């Protein structure tokens, strides 16, 4: 079955979504990620969605959910590289994703994560 790889980078976990998301894949990612966070006791999660150019309300909500559950498991989450079209779609759908930390690209997202983890 198709899976989205979760890479470990020091204290952080790196998730790059390179394929079109469908509902099942999103659910699997959610389970996998929570598993990995608890196993590795990661301090931060970086989700790169720059290759994602289409979202629906389910995927939009999933981004919010993943962010929320990792925060509860004490890992800061940053969503990076959202495409303009995706941002507009989410806003039009009314999904403003409050509480989700965002950054323009992976580099900025990483430095943001380090800052946040250090300040804790």
């Amino acid at each position, binding site marked *: 079955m198709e899976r989205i790889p979760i890479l470990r980078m020091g204290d952080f976990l790196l998730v790059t979504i390179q394929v079109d998301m469908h509902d099942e894949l999103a659910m699997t990612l959610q389970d996998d990620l929570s598993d990995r966070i608890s196993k590795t006791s990661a301090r931060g999660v970086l989700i790169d969605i720059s290759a994602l150019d289409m979202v629906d309300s389910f995927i939009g909500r999933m981004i919010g959910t993943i962010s929320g559950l990792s925060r509860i498991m004490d890992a800061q989450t940053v969503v990076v590289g959202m495409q303009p079209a995706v941002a*507009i779609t*989410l806003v039009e759908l009314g999904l403003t994703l409050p509480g989700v930390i965002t950054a323009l690209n992976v580099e900025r997202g990483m430095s943001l994560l380090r800052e946040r983890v250090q300040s804790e």
Partner: protein
Amino acid sequence: MTALSQQTIDATRKNESQLLASWQANLDASGASRDSRINHAEFETQTRDFLRLLLAGTNNGDSANIAASEWSDVRAFLDGLSRSRALQGFDSHTTANFIFSLKRPLFELVHTQYASNPTELGSQLWAVTELLDALGMYTVRAFQKSREEVIARQQEELLELSTPVVKLWDGVLALPMIGTLDSQRTQVVMESLLQRIVETGAEIAIIDITGVPTVDTLVAQHLLKTVTAIRLMGADAIISGVRPQIAQTIVHLGLDLQGIVTKANLADALALALKRAGLTVTKAT
């Protein structure tokens, strides 16, 4: 509906050159052909072509129904004429007058043809009037249509022109909004700003609303949407240029702009942006 009789059509054909001369004289007298926007030779060609097409039309088709296929050449000619007149900036009056000034020469011709037969004269005059009126109305309609096309195109151009995204500093973009904000404009503005954020990697976007005349609930909602979209992409938005009246309206309407950083003017917004970027401005000694 009265149709043109064969006698009238034949007479028109026979006196074509005379008709043309008197039509052109009529146009000259009204000053229409001496306009600087159109040269005289072109005008003469147009009158000659139209008369030729008109004769062909009357010969083949029913003069009471210009929507028939026999009149398609005449209609195409009038379409082209109206479009070029509209683009040259003529008004509808002058354009329609091109057709209506043919009335007098035609009436005179019919008059001489049926001088001895008043009944026939009346019915033929009526037929000529109907035909020319229909053609004149067609011209005006075509003129109006081309003008509307011009206006629609200009509106589109205005939409694109009015949304420049400026780079104020490294990593700071500004969007000076001018004019009323409707859904369509907000969409264009939002798209171009977000696109520029991706291209430049700017962390702060300043939306300046000094040029927005009024802010109502709808405009506020559009602004909120834009700011949220910017945040989702990982950049920060500052709204500047909130004039006192606008601030009052926002408070009176009870609009919730929480979570949005607002500044009174663009300078304050830029100062904040520089501060966030860790930059300071000092006077060179």
